[in-house]
């Protein structure tokens, strides 16, 4: 019965439509009546059909007209022409039925309008997108002490490092203490600022681990040098004090006691032979001592640095206020995720200027990565990245693998947290091409990210050779102006004998930092095009 009614209704359509699709439409009607049983589905079926009729019958007739208009444009010498809509006149029954149903259609149509209609563009894709943002299994909370390991030791590259760390004081570190803010203004040296400000963070009341070597240590065992060294012009006694303190530190803290002894002998020998006598400039002297130690140990993570600005006696203890300040500053700066966007050709772009602690910024990182989940390639812009926390390095890297991958970190022996928390549920980036943009300012944790992804052949590095600071040593203050970084743990590098300490991470594609984005975009486009 209902099929007959619908067959009648189908006659409302123009005859050409009925001829072409009448049978199929009836077939579809039968399929639906068979599949949709019960009062509500049946009601919905008829509602759908009537709404469909109300919309598509007028449209079918409407679209028949332009044919006539098109024809009428072919004027023949100004002669009047008449066209008819069809070559068959409508059957009287159809006209009557049409008249009756026009009313029904009108009512349905107006009710459709008032209810907003069913035919909305789908928003399901957006919802799926959101679903894909499901958080990964929460990565192991990395104790902040590690961050101290990350950052509390001065850069390894001597002058180079110092130069690069200065001017980077607009880091999240700045909210920490007024003392640092003051140092901030001194253009020449900000290295200790970095160290101490971040070691502040290290003692935040977050789960700490006691993996050694990470707390900044005040060298109590070493004879403290109360008198501030005249830093521009060192005299022999001052040089001797620094050498003695360095030797004491080495013997007490260096991982290999025998090598420490050899270095001590070498430092003493150089001092006695008068090699250092010409050294009146603190910076040059520190560099010379670093070279002397490295000549013996071949350990690039060992260094002695000089700071023009007085080094604080003891890193300021973080207060709840300073922690709150740090958190707030991170939030205000969107956790240093400066830009997350999708470039043309569906290439994801993430500009990250710091790898912040996951205890503060995990949600931001997850959201940022989720919003790039459906891209075909990802560009990580680390050109202004000043390093940060290894747990964030691991979290971001985890999106690039679908299995846990070991991330080498020169600061520490492998722990369960040295593996990325992959696979991330719902993640689709594990097999997408990745690019890392580097500059000569890319440092520390950012160098770890670049180095590991390069060595794992998971990303193409585009830009400049990085700073070359692994920050693998633990910071020991010698006096107001001298301090040294001494590695106390040894991590075996699975990729090569050396890491980036002192030499930086070489990019795969060497271009000026300013051109790196453009180059990477082109590389990505070419790669996607080939697919």
């Amino acid at each position, binding site marked *: 019965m209902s099929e007959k009614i619908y067959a009648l209704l189908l006659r409302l359509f123009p005859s050409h*439509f009925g001829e072409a699709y009448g049978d199929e439409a009836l077939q579809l009607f039968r399929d639906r009546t068979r599949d949709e049983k019960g009062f509500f589905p049946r009601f919905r079926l008829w509602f759908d059909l009537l709404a*469909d009729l109300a919309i598509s019958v007028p449209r079918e007739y409407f679209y028949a007209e332009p044919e006539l208009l098109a024809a009428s444009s072919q004027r023949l010498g100004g002669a009047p022409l008449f066209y008819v809509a069809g070559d068959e006149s409508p059957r009287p029954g159809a006209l009557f039925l049409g008249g009756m149903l026009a009313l029904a259609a009108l009512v349905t149509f107006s009710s459709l309008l008032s209810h907003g209609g069913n035919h909305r563009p789908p928003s399901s894709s957006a919802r799926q997108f959101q679903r894909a*943002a499901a958080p990964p299994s929460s990565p192991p909370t990395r104790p902040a002490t590690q961050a101290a390991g990350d950052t509390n030791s001065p850069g390894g590259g001597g002058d180079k490092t110092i130069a690069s760390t200065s001017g980077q004081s607009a880091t999240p570190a700045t909210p920490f203490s007024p003392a640092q803010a003051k140092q901030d203004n001194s253009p020449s040296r900000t290295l200790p600022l970095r160290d101490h400000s971040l070691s502040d963070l290290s003692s935040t009341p977050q789960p700490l681990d006691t993996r050694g070597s990470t707390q900044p240590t005040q060298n109590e065992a070493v004879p403290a040098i109360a008198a501030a060294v005249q830093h521009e012009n060192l005299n022999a006694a001052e040089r001797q004090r620094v050498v003695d303190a360095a030797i004491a530190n080495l013997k007490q803290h260096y991982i290999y006691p025998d090598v420490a002894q050899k270095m001590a002998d070498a430092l003493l020998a150089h001092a006695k032979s008068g090699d250092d006598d010409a050294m009146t400039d603190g910076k040059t002297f520190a560099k010379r001592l670093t070279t002397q130690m490295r000549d013996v140990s071949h350990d690039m993570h060992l260094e002695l640095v000089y700071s023009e600005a007085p080094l604080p006696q003891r890193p300021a203890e973080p207060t709840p206020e300073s922690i709150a300040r740090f958190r707030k500053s991170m939030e205000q700066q*969107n956790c240093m995720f400066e830009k997350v966007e999708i470039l043309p050709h569906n290439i994801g772009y993430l500009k990250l200027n710091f790898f912040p602690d996951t205890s503060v910024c995990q949600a931001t990182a997850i959201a940022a990565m989720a*919003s790039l989940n459906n891209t075909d390639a990802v560009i990580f812009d680390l050109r202004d990245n000043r390093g940060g926390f290894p747990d964030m390095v691991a979290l971001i890297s985890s999106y690039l693998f679908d299995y846990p991958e070991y991330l080498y970190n020169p600061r520490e022996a492998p722990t369960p947290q040295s593996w990325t928390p992959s696979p991330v549920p719902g993640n689709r980036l594990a097999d997408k091409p990745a690019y890392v943009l580097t500059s000569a300012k890319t440092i520390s944790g950012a160098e770890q990210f670049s180095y590991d992804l390069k060595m794992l052949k998971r990303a193409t590095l585009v830009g400049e050779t990085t700073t070359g600071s692994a920050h693998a040593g633990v910071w020991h203050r010698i006096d107001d102006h001298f301090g040294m970084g001494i590695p106390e743990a040894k991590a075996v590098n699975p990729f090569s004998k050396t890491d980036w300490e002192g030499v930086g991470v070489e990019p795969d594609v060497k271009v000026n930092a300013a051109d790196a984005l453009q180059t990477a975009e082109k590389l990505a486009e070419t790669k996607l095009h080939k697919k």
Partner: protein
Amino acid sequence: MPKRKLDPLPSAAFQILLSLAGEDLHGYGIMRQVAVQTDGRMRLGPGTLYSSIQTLLQGKFIEEVGLREDAKLGQERRRYYRLTSAGRKLARTEADRLAGFLRVARARMILRGEYV
């Protein structure tokens, strides 16, 4: 028949193209696939469905691939439709256009809280 416009692409036509991206379907199959992929928001009635199919056929965005039975739906022979390469391109263009809107919405913070 006059050619009706596919620019801008009506959402029904776009959904039909999407439904055929995976496999060849008959009319009822298209209707069900569209309902699934729009979470039940769009149920194409026969009029809309076949007029859209007709338009897409004329534009050579889909093609007929003959009559055959659908084992799940009994003995009746059904006409199957297939997406052409032009149709795939058209769907991709439309998807790009929508993705553009999404980007703008995100940039304008309309989607704040859901995306960064």
